[in-house]
């Protein structure tokens, strides 16, 4: 690669950043995988790597596709693909050791976009692989692993929904019919500039989970690219400037931390490195008694997750998170055409493709006892349509000795279920056919197609059931001066009002005792005032008598 090519590559990257970045992010259509901003290759910070990938001959070729790049990577990094293929990022599958439930995106039906079967090409824009367009995807082919999505440092590598995990190899209009162009990726340039995974790599998918910025988690969104200290004490540029991986310590491509099997109560005696545990848990760095001055708080920490006080709200970065998604209203048309309405904040309140939404910022979490065991309502689970269906039930109690009080985002929804079998439904949202809900707005077709795709029986009758889904709040940790103050819980009504099984001065009290106590004090006061008044009157009378006044 000569200097001209390198320069040209940079120009392409810059033009891409200038054109695609701005408008795409401002677009009202949330796209799951927008471009990552160049960050890892920050100017003025020389790389400490012992390898300059720009000098490797194998990377100096005119790559036509992602898999070609991967093959080149594997000539040196011989074990990398195998490692990735053992992870959740690749398999989208997780066996929960506590419940023996088979989870992961491949299996779970959530209450956002619900499920991936029959919608692979769209969803797998966030798969660390190439070509997962249907259930026949080859999970063993090493060249299907996408190295670049996690190791790109240029910010020009972008995977779009609909391309089954491939980046765009030709200039492409996206979103379709929007008039906006996404430039073809320069694979050689990206490959020659690979580096350590930065927050923009993780963020390209995780900031946009659920179909748009901040939609899903509430505590992970694009405001974490350059957060102020107030927003994230660990990731602030002028503070610790952590990457995601500094906490989510990764070994052989396996990333620590799990939402399917969370560490609700970290009992490991470790400070990181000394004993195995969840490296991403707060305690892995902070230990179990981190409050040096106010040691009373260490006792609080025996029952209360760090996050409860130190993540005082979620969606704190100015990006509203979705709190409600009601699929039951999807499909309405105006003059035969789909439409959208906006809320006062300019976010979608209704979308013909998806139904009704509610967004919120600076949300006070719900607080629950949580012991780390999560029970999912899966495809095969029978549900009770008269009750709110818990997509994932967080278990815990004040008395089980292994729970702590955790903050969660409780995401509410309404989604279709099979009236015949009382089971959640997989339906077809996206595709270039006449059955996809997002093209034809016909629930019957979308459901029939989806259920056929997974080989499931379908009674032919559907209805909508209320659901909720819990998301542990753990990111966007505030600096200590912005953590909860005592008074926010030690008062009535306070933050932990709905949390049972704890006595909290200032919140709880024995009402009978209070009534009796104040009555006794009040009566005493009345008694002495009366007695005093009597004395005053008596002394006046006797003085009057002695003084001979009439």
């Amino acid at each position, binding site marked *: 690669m000569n200097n001209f090519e390198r320069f040209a590559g940079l120009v392409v990257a810059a033009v891409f950043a200038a054109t695609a970045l701005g408008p795409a992010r401002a677009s009202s259509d949330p796209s799951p995988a927008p471009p990552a901003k160049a960050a890892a290759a920050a100017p003025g910070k020389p790389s400490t790597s012992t390898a300059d990938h720009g000098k490797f001959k194998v990377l100096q070729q005119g790559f036509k596709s992602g898999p070609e790049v991967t093959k080149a990577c594997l000539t040196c990094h011989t074990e990398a693909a195998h490692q990735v293929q053992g992870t959740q990022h690749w398999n989208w599958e997780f066996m929960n050791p506590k419940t023996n439930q088979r989870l992961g995106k491949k299996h779970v039906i959530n209450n956002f976009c619900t499920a991936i079967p029959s919608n692979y090409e769209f969803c797998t824009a966030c798969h660390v692989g190439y070509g997962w367009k249907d259930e026949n995807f080859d999970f063993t082919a090493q060249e299907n692993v996408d190295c670049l999505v996690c190791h790109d440092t240029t910010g020009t590598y972008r995977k779009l929904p609909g391309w089954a995990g491939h980046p765009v190899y030709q200039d492409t209009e996206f979103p379709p019919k929007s008039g906006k162009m996404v430039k073809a990726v320069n694979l050689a340039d990206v490959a020659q500039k690979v580096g350590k995974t930065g927050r923009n790599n993780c963020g390209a998918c995780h900031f946009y989970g659920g179909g748009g910025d901040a939609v899903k988690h509430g505590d992970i969104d694009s405001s974490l690219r350059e957060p102020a200290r107030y927003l994230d004490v660990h990731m602030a540029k002028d503070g610790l400037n952590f990457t995601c991986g500094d906490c989510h310590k990764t070994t052989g491509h396996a990333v620590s931390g799990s939402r399917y099997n969370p560490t609700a109560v970290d009992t490991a005696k470790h400070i990181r490195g000394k004993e195995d545990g969840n490296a991403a848990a707060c305690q892995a760095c902070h230990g179990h008694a981190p409050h040096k001055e106010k040691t009373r708080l260490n006792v609080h920490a025996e029952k209360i997750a760090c996050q409860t006080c130190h993540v005082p709200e979620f969606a704190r970065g100015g990006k509203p998170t979705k709190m409600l998604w009601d699929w039951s209203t999807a499909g309405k048309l105006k003059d035969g055409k789909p439409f959208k309405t906006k809320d006062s904040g300019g976010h979608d309140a209704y979308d013909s493709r998806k139904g009704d939404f509610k967004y919120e910022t600076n949300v006070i979490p719900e607080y629950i006892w949580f012991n780390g065991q999560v029970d999912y309502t899966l495809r095969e689970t029978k549900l009770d349509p008269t009750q709110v269906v818990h997509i994932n039930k967080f278990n815990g109690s004040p008395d089980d000795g292994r729970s702590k009080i955790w903050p969660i985002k409780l995401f509410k929804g309404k989604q279709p279920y099979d009236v015949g079998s009382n089971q959640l439904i997989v339906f077809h949202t996206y595709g270039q056919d006449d059955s996809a809900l997002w093209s034809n707005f016909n629930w019957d077709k979308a459901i029939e197609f989806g259920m056929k795709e997974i080989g499931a029986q379908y009674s032919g009758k559907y209805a909508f059931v209320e659901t909720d889904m819990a998301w542990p709040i753990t990111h966007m940790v505030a600096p200590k001066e912005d953590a909860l103050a*005592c008074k926010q819980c030690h008062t009535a009504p306070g933050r932990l009002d709905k949390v049972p099984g704890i*006595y909290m001065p*200032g919140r709880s*009290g024995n009402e009978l005792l209070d009534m009796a106590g104040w009555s006794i004090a009040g009566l*005493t006061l009345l008694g002495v005032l009366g007695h005093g008044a009597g004395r005053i009157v*008596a002394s006046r009378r006797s003085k009057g008598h002695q003084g001979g006044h009439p």
Partner: protein
Amino acid sequence: MSQRIYIFKGFERFWHWSQAFLIIFMLITGFEVHGSYSLMGFERAVDTHTFAAWTLVGLWCFAIFWHFTTGEWKQYIPTFDKITDMVKFYAIGIFTQAPHPYKVNPNRKHNPLQRLTYLGILAFVGPLIWVTGWFYIFHDQWHAWGWDAFLSLEWVAFFHTLAAFIFLAFVIAHVYLTTTGHTPLAHIKAMITGWEDVD
């Protein structure tokens, strides 16, 4: 004709007034912690309440030592002698300018009602609030010491609050009864100067 006698010694007066200040302060902060009102903020109320409690503990170490070395503890030995006279006096005599039925002297500073009340406070209500207060203060250590097996914060708080209400009622009555000397301020003066006018 009245004469002046020296009833309350220097330490005793210091003890009384500093204790009075601490108890009233702890009533104010304590009921804020309890959630009855907002004044200085929960956190400051807890901190200052705890600080005042330890100060009172320190004061009490001296007071107990003083009571036993001076023999003053005998002032609190209960007696029912003249107790009906006292009750009658407060109920009737005080309104008819009857003479006080009890004459104090340095060996018998407290009238029988006072003796009983103070003994009750010192022997029952006091310990109740001390013990529950200490449980509160050491709540941090319950788990480490294995106390959480038989202690519940809810009941500790219940008895601590109960004792606080009794103290509150005591303080109200006590302050009022200081006005029942031969002049309204006579008892307070005595507790400040140590000298009491007696007939």
